[in-house]
């Protein structure tokens, strides 16, 4: 009896696997002509192989664990009708589709691919064009969004959507994606334990990366370039930003990163280059800034107050118009052992640190903070003269705001 049951079990397993993990091919001349049909006839854990061609479909609901693979990038054309693929099941893989023409709506956030309350999904090698929202993860867990290319054509903020949006999601990896010309490149809200890595988010209308109320996330080696306003980071705890590049966010209201109500974060090894403001900080506490490069920014750092216990150690400040703007008391923030290209002191005891403290806040920067209209005197001889006299004998700028150990050589 035991033997038979094992045999039957094996047989069941064998055929079962064969039955359930079958491959269904979808093409224009096949038996199954549409993706929707394919999903309907597929059993759980089947693979849907979609051949090259154009599939004019929208509102495709993936409601069972399936692997949907496109061969040579088949085009799924939503014809601006609405959402294109909605995943409502666990263990779904989408790979290699070319999805275009997502419908625009003012009442619903239509996405090219939406994942709803699902786990263990993988979305990879997908190309999205002419979209409203791109990849929208809603209350999901344990998924991965990998190597996708999202090219939008957003013109106005009010009728465009975000490239990759995470909402109430956890343990998601977003890696090696390229997002361009959408409203916000990558957007996170109420999403914890997310890893955002090696993505390139550029030329977006508003923010390259935008997150709020999202804790314990890691942002690593991403590039954010030439976005309307840069990157905005708000109301989050324990985040890590490592080795990212924030570049060319140049405009009257742009910044590399805006930090607002961020606590216990680590910002290390990032490069801020040619931004109007490198980092704009507001109400953020216990953040460690180290080994960052601030190069050729208008303002490297603008501290807007209510910031406590932040440490700026071992950063390079090079060729910024203003290194620092500060409009409150120093509080207990620390600036130490940074390299400042504007530093003109000397190092007699040859310990690698200047003997004269460096004052990163220029008098002009202080005045501009008080009366913004005075910025019109930028680069006038008078400002240079009073900046110089202030440098020699500080009267107005906060007394304690010094780097007592400015480095003589830049940190590599």
């Amino acid at each position: 009896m035991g033997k038979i049951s094992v045999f039957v079990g094996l047989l069941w397993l064998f055929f079962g696997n064969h039955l359930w993990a079958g491959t269904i091919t979808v093409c224009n001349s096949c038996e199954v002509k549409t993706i929707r049909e394919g999903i309907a006839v597929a059993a759980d854990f089947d693979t849907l192989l979609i051949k090259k061609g154009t599939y004019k479909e929208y509102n495709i609901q993936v409601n069972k664990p399936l692997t949907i693979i496109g061969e040579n990038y088949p085009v799924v054309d939503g014809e601006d009708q609405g959402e294109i693929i909605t995943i409502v099941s666990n263990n779904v893989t989408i790979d290699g589709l070319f999805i275009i023409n997502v419908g625009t709506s003012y009442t619903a956030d239509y996405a090219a691919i939406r994942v709803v309350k699902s786990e263990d999904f993988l979305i990879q090698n997908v190309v999205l064009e002419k979209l409203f929202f791109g990849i929208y993860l809603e209350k999901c867990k344990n998924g991965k969004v990998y190597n996708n290319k999202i090219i939008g054509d957003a013109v106005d903020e009010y009728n465009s959507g975000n490239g990759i949006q995470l909402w109430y999601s956890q343990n998601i990896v977003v890696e090696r994606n390229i997002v361009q010309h959408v409203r916000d490149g990558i957007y996170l809200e109420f999403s914890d334990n997310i890893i955002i890595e090696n993505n390139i988010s550029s030329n977006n209308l508003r923010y390259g990366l935008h997150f709020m109320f999202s804790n314990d996330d890691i942002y690593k080696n991403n590039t954010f370039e030439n976005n309307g306003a840069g990157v905005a980071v708000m109301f989050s705890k324990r985040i890590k930003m490592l080795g990212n590049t924030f570049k060319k966010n140049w405009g009257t209201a742009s910044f590399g990163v805006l930090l607002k109500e961020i606590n216990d974060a680590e910002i290390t090894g990032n490069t801020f280059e040619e931004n109007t403001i490198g980092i704009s900080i507001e109400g953020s506490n216990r953040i460690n800034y180290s080994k960052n490069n601030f190069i050729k920014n208008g303002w490297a750092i603008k501290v807007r107050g209510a910031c406590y216990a932040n440490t700026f150690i071992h950063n390079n400040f090079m060729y910024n118009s203003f290194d620092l703007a500060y409009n409150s008391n120093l509080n207990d923030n620390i600036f130490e052992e940074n390299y400042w290209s504007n530093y003109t002191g000397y190092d007699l005891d040859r310990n690698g640190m200047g003997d004269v403290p460096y004052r990163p806040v220029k008098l002009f920067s202080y005045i501009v903070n008080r009366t913004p209209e005075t910025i019109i005197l930028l680069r006038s001889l008078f400002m240079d003269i009073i900046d110089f006299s202030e440098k020699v004998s500080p009267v107005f700028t906060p007394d304690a705001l010094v780097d007592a150990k400015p480095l003589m050589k830049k940190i590599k």
Partner: protein
Amino acid sequence: MPSRQYQLTTRMIKILKYSFYDLMRSRWSYVYFLFYLLLGFVLLFLNNELSKAVITLMNVIIVLVPLIGTIFGVMYYYNSKEFTELLLAQPIKRSSIFLGQYFGVAGSLTMSLVLGLGIPFALYGLFESNAIWDFSLLLITGAFLTLIFTAVAFNIALSNENRIKGFGYAVLAWLFLAVIYDGLFLMSLIVFEEYPLDSFSLVATMFNPIDLSRTLILLKLDISALLGYTGAIFKQFFGTNFGLVMSICMLLLWTIIPVWRLSYVAKRKDF
């Protein structure tokens, strides 16, 4: 009548030519020319990017050009005083004498500036780069500043027989427009910070040729993003054709009024 008018003009041109060649022969305009040539080459050698060099050059131009125009103007006037008195004994219209001298000085200074900076920039490929408009604006404002400050210097020299006094006043005039004016401007911005200051700062900028030149150039460069909200208002004004025409008119006015006063006073002055 036309022949007389013609005669007057040719005389003025003759004096202009004389002053011009006089300065060309003197060492100083070569020094001035070589200074700009060297400055241009060094700047471009250190920083190959034309647009970056333009902004460094702006700092030099808005400070140095007025200063040199002022000092050169005063010096030239006092130095050629005896020759001027000799000319006055001749049947030549007074305005031709003084205007001829003025345009001779201002013209040679402008030429030194334009050629001194133009040659290195042209050699480094100005004509293929898109910095050409910024650079032309720089040269135009530089030329205007030379014309304005030389005229102011001539006026001061004409009104002061005492050389030391005249020299002092001229430097003071430069100091006022280059530095003190901005100080007063800044003070009034801070004192009246409660009030809307946009139109005030626009007007205050328009009235000082140095500030006007600086603002005109700054707004054309990338760095204008730093000006933020205030910059946006300025851009709205100076960015339009109307604003540009207004600024050029203002600079012209700054040139014409001292030149007019020069000929007016010269006509009535008892030498």
